């Protein structure tokens, strides 16, 4: 009964019942997608920590290898899957595929392969960029944008691979695929948050509109989209919980490994890997998203996007605004909250700046305009998430 109710509020789409096409096990290529996205996400966290603490950057740092390993795994597994489906696959696998340039394979395999290829393409481009314009000083350089695009498409392809299988599955396989979808979706959320780290990783901005603008744009699209695609109750809450758990694990495990600054000038001596900071308090907003979308399942999507988006923003502000005072206090300067962790390039004379809330917007008017933009962005992001989630629930191939 609960299952029926859930399907009804999540989407008008009807789950396929044809037993002839019903999948009963998790295919190997979905596991390889999980490994690839995990490797890349872990590698990116490691890479940022490497830049903050060790500094020195070559193509062959272990963090870079972990990032590109995801591309290699994706590229090889998807290439094999496509070639096997095209030239040697069973009739059922051919029927359960899309056709591109004469090749056949699952849609997600093409998307993930495209992402992996994009990531590999960025490597020689990035190398030339370093030689021409110097070693990395900016996150968003043109070759990095291509790499990031590739990473997200690889992750997106993994989600499509999983949902196409999920939408044809029942029983244990469906349950496993749902968990994989939530896990992969959460990794995508982590990647997105790493991209926005300049803003949402800076706790001194927790009283600035920019912090909530970035959160509002980035989080709901994935929380709602993955949540809808999974068909699971409390999906957004589960995603936020996994994100919080993984981020905290990174925060607490990375400093256990020794490190030394390899770039100068060194203003803060480094003895261990530097974590990326305490996670954003995302759970309250995710809970509100789940409650609103569940309670008002029968209402129109635009109405739900407006209400759920607003609820997400209000709950996020309500949780993070007072938490900011704690993060600025001396009680947060410990291994749990990591407010005493600094990169090698941070002079001790400037530590106090990291413990003082600052206003990104210079006037009250700017702040409130920024918050209005955050509200609109959150609503749009929620609506896009709903649309995207619905599309993923319809994916069959």
């Amino acid at each position, binding site marked *: 009964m609960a299952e029926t109710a859930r399907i009804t509020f999540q989407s008008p789409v009807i789950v*396929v019942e*044809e037993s002839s*096409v019903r999948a009963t096990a998790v295919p190997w290529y979905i596991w390889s997608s999980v490994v690839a996205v995990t490797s890349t996400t872990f590698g990116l966290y490691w890479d940022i920590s490497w830049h903050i603490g060790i*500094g*020195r950057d070559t193509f062959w740092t272990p963090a870079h290898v972990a990032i590109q390993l995801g591309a290699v795994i994706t590229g090889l597994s998807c290439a094999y899957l496509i070639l096997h489906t095209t030239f040697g696959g069973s009739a*059922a696998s051919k*029927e*359960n595929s*899309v*056709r*591109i*340039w004469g090749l056949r394979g699952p*849609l997600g395999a*093409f*998307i993930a392969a*495209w992402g992996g*290829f*994009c990531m590999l*393409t960025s490597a*020689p*481009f990035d190398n*030339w960029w370093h*030689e*021409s*314009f*110097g*070693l*990395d*000083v900016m996150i968003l*350089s*043109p070759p990095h*944008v291509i790499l990031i695009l590739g990473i997200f498409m690889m992750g997106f392809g993994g989600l499509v691979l999983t949902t*196409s299988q999920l939408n*044809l599955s029942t029983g244990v396989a469906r349950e496993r695929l749902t968990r994989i979808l939530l896990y992969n979706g959460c990794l995508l959320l982590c990647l997105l948050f790493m991209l926005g780290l300049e803003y949402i990783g800076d706790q001194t901005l927790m009283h600035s509109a920019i912090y909530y603008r970035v959160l509002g744009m980035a989080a709901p699209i994935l929380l709602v989209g993955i949540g809808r695609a999974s068909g699971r109750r409390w999906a957004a809450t589960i995603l936020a919980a996994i994100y919080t758990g993984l981020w905290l694990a990174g925060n607490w495990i990375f400093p256990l490994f020794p490190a*030394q*600054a*390899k*770039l*100068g*000038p*060194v*203003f803060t*001596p480094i003895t261990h890997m530097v974590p990326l900071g305490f996670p954003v308090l995302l759970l309250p907003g995710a809970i509100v998203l789940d409650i609103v979308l569940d309670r008002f399942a029968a209402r129109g999507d635009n109405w739900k996007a407006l209400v759920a988006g607003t609820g997400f923003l209000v709950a996020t502000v309500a949780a993070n605004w007072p938490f900011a005072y704690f993060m600025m206090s001396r009680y947060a300067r410990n291994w749990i909250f990591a407010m005493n962790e600094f990169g*090698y390039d941070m*002079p001790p*004379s400037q530590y106090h700046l990291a413990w003082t809330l600052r206003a990104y917007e210079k006037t009250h008017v700017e702040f409130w305009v920024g918050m209005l933009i955050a509200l609109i962005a959150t609503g749009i992001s929620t609506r896009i998430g709903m649309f995207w989630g619905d*599309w993923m629930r*319809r*994916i*069959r*191939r």
Partner: protein
Amino acid sequence: MRNLYSQVWTLALIFVTTTAAFAHVGNPNVYFESDAGPYHLLVTVNPPPMIPGVAQVQVRVTSGTVTNISIAPVYVNGKDQGLAPTPDPMLRSVNDPQWFTGKVWLMQSGAWEIHAEVSGPQGEGKLAVPVSAFARRTLPMQRSLGVLLFMLMLFLATGIVSIAGAAAREGVLLPGSVPSPRNRRMGRIVMAVATVLVVAILVLGNWWWNAQAADLKHNMLYSAPPLSVAFDGKGQLSLRIEEDYWHKTRKDQWSMGLIPDHGHLMHVFLLRMPSMDRFYHLHPAQTSDDSFTLNLPAIPSGEYKIFADIVRSTGFPETLVGKVLLPDVKGGPFSGDDSGTAALTLGSSASTTMVSPLPDGDNMVWEQAASTLKTGQTTWFRFRVEDPQQHPLNDLEPYMGMAGHAEFVKSDFSVFAHIHPAGSVPMASLMLAKEDSGSPMNHGSLHTVPAEVSFPYGFPQPGDYRLFVQIKRNGQIETGVFDAHVAN
């Protein structure tokens, strides 16, 4: 000709010319010879062409047996300059145990010191090498790489359009279902929309790429401060260091004040163009932070190239470049450390010259070991003063604290290097490095001078060069002039 110049200076009492050029004028490499404890080393540093970048460091051990050398870069900004990162060991050559190679990461433009710790059976030693880091060039994309990236972009662009079309056409169909005409139409519509989007993204991406590249070039590429030069029509030259964008945007990060090098805030070299038949090494007086005046000695008329060496208070040396058109100047004799010489027109000697006659009848001899000079080879340029009977003379005195000064100038003036027996780094920078590293000071500043003077240097480009080698004897500064052809 004299009348012509008089008319020119009557009509325009002040002639001003301003030229900007690369600092150290065409000589990115640092050559440095010094003791490190019981060992004697020749260090060559090839700074990166872009900042941040990686500098290549090479060490030739010329005295003693060294087993380990570790190096670490220290940024010098005259303010809160932080600590050096963890030192890196240099790699010892298997075939040549006296040869070490390594690299250091230079992350900011400005003055750096490479601190080296040397160890071996004779004990341990320290050394600090001043290095200037500044972006010299961006790298154009090689044609082959450009073609490869274009093909990859085309593949990715058409690939994503096809994927979007397939997703709309077949993605939501049940397995085994054949796309209906409506599905196919939807696929084509999505492909058309995706094509427009991809083209728009590529156009925007191209614009953004060009904007980013232009912005980096504008912000990073070094230019020497422009040098304003004004002649008063009588005998005084006014020089002013102008501020350009590169320096303006960095003066909050590191100190731009000047410190004396060999007792002078500015060393001015005048070379008559194009023949280099007149050479002057002069020292103007400072009138304000950025302004200097120079009372010229007697100088024949002509257009003169000006190279003005200064050292910032962080130890960052710069060479300002300018030009000035002078009439016959009836100046006084040389005073203090000022000096000059007349020489044959450049190119009048068919081959490399080995002997340069000095004014008192003695000769300066270039002891060139290799028959052919090549670019990129670090070489000791050794010079000996001897009497007409070829007997070495031991009457050399320190000239501004050094055994000698040498200027290497390419025939088209695109290369200018002011070298000392310790190498290409200014004495002022060495003094700062010594203070920072705590290493003992023995870089060629001395009270007695041996009969032979040597300078470590490597020509950066092929072509014809003129070498001016300056020494001091019996209170007189003498300049030997040599021509050299450098092969590729």
